[in-house]
């Protein structure tokens, strides 16, 4: 939702804290689930992630989540899906060149990052997304990475 998305960017510092607090819990739970159930529950977990992140950030489920590095503004809402933005077409009022009714997601991103503890992360390069991961859960990916990390 557009309004909620903006609320999330305005409260990027709070969302960052929430994410840092809640994320380890989610990952711990998902690690447990993944160990016991394998990939049987992937669909509902992915749907839950899509629902929650969709509500908060208009998440597009690219499977390459970068919210913590983009001021809590989802870059996949950019009509050009720019991951290191903004482009040069931003309107003088900060609105999107393509969708004049939408605030540029990268104007929002730099704004959101300015309030975040780890806001400097926006300055690091985010390489092009892996399109094979579209529609998949970033949470499950991180949980499985931790599982294979634990195994090594």
């Amino acid at each position: 939702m557009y309004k909620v998305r903006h609320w999330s960017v305005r409260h990027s510092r709070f969302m960052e804290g929430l994410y840092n607090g809640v994320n380890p819990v989610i990952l711990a739970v998902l690690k447990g689930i993944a160990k016991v159930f394998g990939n049987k529950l992937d669909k509902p977990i992915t749907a839950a992630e899509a629902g929650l992140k969709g509500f908060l950030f208009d998440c597009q489920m690219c499977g390459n989540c970068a919210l913590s590095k983009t001021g809590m503004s989802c870059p996949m809402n950019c009509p050009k899906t720019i991951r290191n933005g903004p482009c040069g077409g931003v309107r003088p009022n900060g609105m999107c060149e393509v969708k004049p009714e939408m605030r540029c997601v990268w104007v929002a991103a730099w704004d959101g990052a300015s309030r975040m503890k780890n806001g400097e992360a926006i300055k690091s390069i985010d390489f092009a997304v892996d399109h094979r991961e579209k529609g998949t859960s970033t949470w499950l990916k991180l949980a499985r990475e931790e599982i294979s990390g634990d195994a090594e």
Partner: protein
Amino acid sequence: MIEEIPNVETLGTNPGDPLPQLPGHVSHGRFERILRAGHFAVTTEIAPPDSADPDEVLTRASLFDGYVDAINATDGSGAHCHMSSLAVCAILTRAGYSPILQISCRDRNRIAIQGDTLGAAALGVCNALCLSGDDVGAGDHPEAKPVFDFDSVSLTRTLRVLRDESRFLSGRKLDLAPKLFIGSSINPFVPPIANRADQLAKKIEAGAEYIQSQYCFDLDILKDFISIVVDMGLTEKAYILIGVGVLTSARTAKWMRENVPGVHIPDAIIKRLEGADKPLREGRNICVEFMQQLKETAGVSGVHVMAYRQEKWVKDVVKRSGVLDERVPWTPETAKVN
């Protein structure tokens, strides 16, 4: 030490032959030579024809003979169909020109772009400019599928991988890396203005060696931007060329401001055109003055003259500005004399 160039036995006998790559240079091109030698560079852009006629490209390029160091071949600018950037570049290199291959992320994915980059280098192209590209909705085929597999930063990084690591993104090795001088763009005149220098830093970190900016019609914003960029040390890492334009009337200026994404024209410029007896001449005067001021601005390495449908005036504004000093850029004629 001059690097050996494959398949070229005699250098410089034909205008289209590559030059030897100088020590510390990344390409065989003249454009890199001009910048690294510390000259104030002048580039312009060619409007690719809506035609399959190669002579049309050469006719358009000849308008700039002796006044520009490199010619940007636009890649479907404004999301309109024209002859491809790669083809325009190939025609130009055969005649000895120094074209800049513009690569937009809008129309091709990473497979096509990497292939085209190798092809361009094989055809003698020495410079590439990485751009995100206008949205399809801005052009004459708004129903087209926008690709945007890359953005300009990922694209810049990819070209550096091809050139410096001599491999595709997949890791597969190249037999010969494309020796390209790699650039990108910046628009310091639109929001988020406070973050534009940081964004430039990202582009340079990704691998941009030169930058060509959007139209500059506001020297106050530009000077603030450049002073930050100089303080950040970015002008030590990349050459910054600032875009200048030839406006033809107050009406056109207003239209551009309203309709061309990313073009910032202050009211003062529009008032000046409105008050002028000969607005066409005034538009060129403005361009000349901006070029002269930019030459005096520390951190600016050159200008990029964009004169869409006013290409015949590029020579005039460059000449009157005096930014080239006594220098005469390469022309097909100088090649014949040598």
